[in-house]
């Protein structure tokens, strides 16, 4: 149960009470004065001026450098980028990684490493593939990821690995491998495996008390990445079964296994309604694809208008059934073991 007395008071709530005759006019006016928080306009204006001025100046400098890029020497181009990396890294060390400024500087240094690598590749025309840039960037960043203990930096590192995988298979098309004949399938499976390993590592780290990885959004993003990359082959299998190949069936099998594993883990082991919701949404969407296929291309030849009606009923049933089930599960979770929920919230 939610105690409304512990909710934040708002001017709208005050007006509502006055309209119902529960507050006199004098009480209403006093309540409005009490509820309105004090506004430190000077601080707000000061920060706004600083942020706007900094962004405008930085944008102007970037445009100036871009305009004069061809006239800048190699030393200036490469040296400038590396100097910025060094400055940000030293600044992060000096400010301290436990402070917000230090974290921003370390993250900026991590981003600038990639810019420096890109500049190196452009200046010296090394002929390296795109995936090598992202892989090298991830390798160089790994040390700071371990030291920095920043969720954002860890997330950036994972994005780089994902991009490296995508560009690797793009650069190596049609590599045959057991059941998986083309680079699209290999990309989907590789990404799913990579993100599943990252998710498992994250869960394990949180159990062992690594606090900076405890942010819930990290789990949600990784679950979405795993399920999302496997959804496409499954959907293709449903929509065009006549063109299905062996790898699609394998991907669909892995997809179903991932959904079942997700349900078990986030329902029983580490209860999390958000992650469970993603798993059920994934399942619901797949069900709608399957039922839609049956309606429009099934054994019964329905006119398309009746197909629309059938789809309306199908969508209604699937989503409302899923929502009802999730709500009941959420209610059961709230009555579940507090210790388990607190540890893995």
């Amino acid at each position, binding site marked *: 149960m*939610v105690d409304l007395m512990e909710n934040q008071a708002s001017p709208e709530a005050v007006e509502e009470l006055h309209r119902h005759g529960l507050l006199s006019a004098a009480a209403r006016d006093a309540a409005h004065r009490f509820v309105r928080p004090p506004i430190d306009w000077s601080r707000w204006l000061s920060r706004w001026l600083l942020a706007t001025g900094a962004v405008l100046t930085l944008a102007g400098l970037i445009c100036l450098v871009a305009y004069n890029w061809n006239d800048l020497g190699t030393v200036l181009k490469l040296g400038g980028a590396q100097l910025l990396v060094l400055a940000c890294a030293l600044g992060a060390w000096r400010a301290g990684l436990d402070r917000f400024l230090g974290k921003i500087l370390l993250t900026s240094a991590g981003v600038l490493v990639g810019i420096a690598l890109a500049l190196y590749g452009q200046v010296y025309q090394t002929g390296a593939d795109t995936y090598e840039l992202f892989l090298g960037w991830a390798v160089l960043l790994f040390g700071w990821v371990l030291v920095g203990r920043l969720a954002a930096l860890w997330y950036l590192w994972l994005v780089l690995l994902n991009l490296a995988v995508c560009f690797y298979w793009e650069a190596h098309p049609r590599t045959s491998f057991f059941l998986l004949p083309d680079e699209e399938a290999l990309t989907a499976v590789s990404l799913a495996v990579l993100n599943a390993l990252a998710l498992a590592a994250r869960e394990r780290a949180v159990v062992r008390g690594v606090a900076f990885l405890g942010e819930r959004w990290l789990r949600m993003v990784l679950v979405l990445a795993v399920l999302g990359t496997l959804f496409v082959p499954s959907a293709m299998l449903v929509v065009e079964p006549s063109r299905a190949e062996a790898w699609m069936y394998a991907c669909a099998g892995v997809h179903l296994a991932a959904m079942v594993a997700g349900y078990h883990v986030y329902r029983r082991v580490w209860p999390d309604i958000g992650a469970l919701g993603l798993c059920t949404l994934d399942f619901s969407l797949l069900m709608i694809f399957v039922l839609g296929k049956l309606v429009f291309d099934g054994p019964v030849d329905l006119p398309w208008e009746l197909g629309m009606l059938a789809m309306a009923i199908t969508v209604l049933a699937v*989503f*409302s059934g899923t*929502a009802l089930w*999730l709500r009941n599960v959420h209610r059961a979770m709230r009555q579940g073991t507090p210790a388990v929920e607190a540890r893995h919230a």
Partner: protein
Amino acid sequence: MRERPTMRALLDHLRSRGLLNDDGMAAIAKKLAPQEPPPPAFVRVLVVLGAWFSATFFTVFILATFFRNQQENSLAMGVGYLAGATLLHRVARHFFFHQVALALLVAGFILALVGVGEQTSGALERDAVTATAIALAAALYVLYPDDLQRFMMPLAAAGVAAITLMDHPSDGQLWRLDVYAGLELAATVLIFTNVRLRARFLPLGYAMAAGALLALATHAVWREEAILRWLFGTNIAPFFLLLRLLAVAAGIWLIRWAACDIRPEPGLNNAWWRSKTVWAAVCAILLLGVLVPPGVLIALLLMVLGRGSAERRLEALGAVAFAGFLVDLYYNVDVGFLEKSLVLIASGVTTLCAWWVFTRSLPGKGGDPCAPSTPASPLPQP
């Protein structure tokens, strides 16, 4: 922003001041009795998706089956949908049916406008559709008490009206859209600066704010910078300046509101017109009104309005619009890339200088914007 106090803290405060007795406290506690928690956000998202998709499929089925060759019945069907949705919203208890009703309401609104358009023609068509949209939005505001509906329908009606005003952009009469955006801004300021109006018309206030920004954003795609034309002697209609005047007036009204009506920062005196901060803000508003496009100024005003009324969504809307209009301003400045970069740097350095001067001039802070201010006089009591 400091967090607001809880309801319990508020009621204890009123009781300590003798403005609430035990009976009143008990009555309020009964009204605010513990309730079943709302479903988690994810469940609501699923319900919304299900309701809207199923309503869309159902509407297509109805249109295809019963009105295949009878398009003039769109109006009747739309009115039927609106009536049905309103009734469903009033009798339904479950969140799911409220979303179905909302989806049917949107479908009915669109069908009604299509129906009116089909039964009129020429210039009358545009005016009839606009009038219908505004009338429906006003009627639904009363009959269909739902915050999301009260935001969507007025915004949709405002959009239809803006499209009608934009119908002939080539004739240079863009001032109509400017005046329109100014009126929406005035409505927004009026609603958000009055507590009683805000309590009743908050969704409408957001719709007006969004409508003003959208009208200006659409306008910015092809508008010429009126102040530049004025500076270079081209004859322009005086209405082009009307929006700027409206925005500056709204800005000065907001400065007065921020200084007096809401709890001011401790450094301000009772006589707000003597405050250097206030006069600096007025000068800044006047300068911005002359130099920058209205979109930038209006976005800034929305940020101030959102900050002052503790409406974070409005403040965020203003911040996003400010960034967008600022990018639009510098992107469309008619100079070369090098000059543009120098303009940016000059603007940035000027703003940073303003920041430095501002922080140094604040009393009792020693130049540190993060240090707490020292009250120069007691807080004014209304």
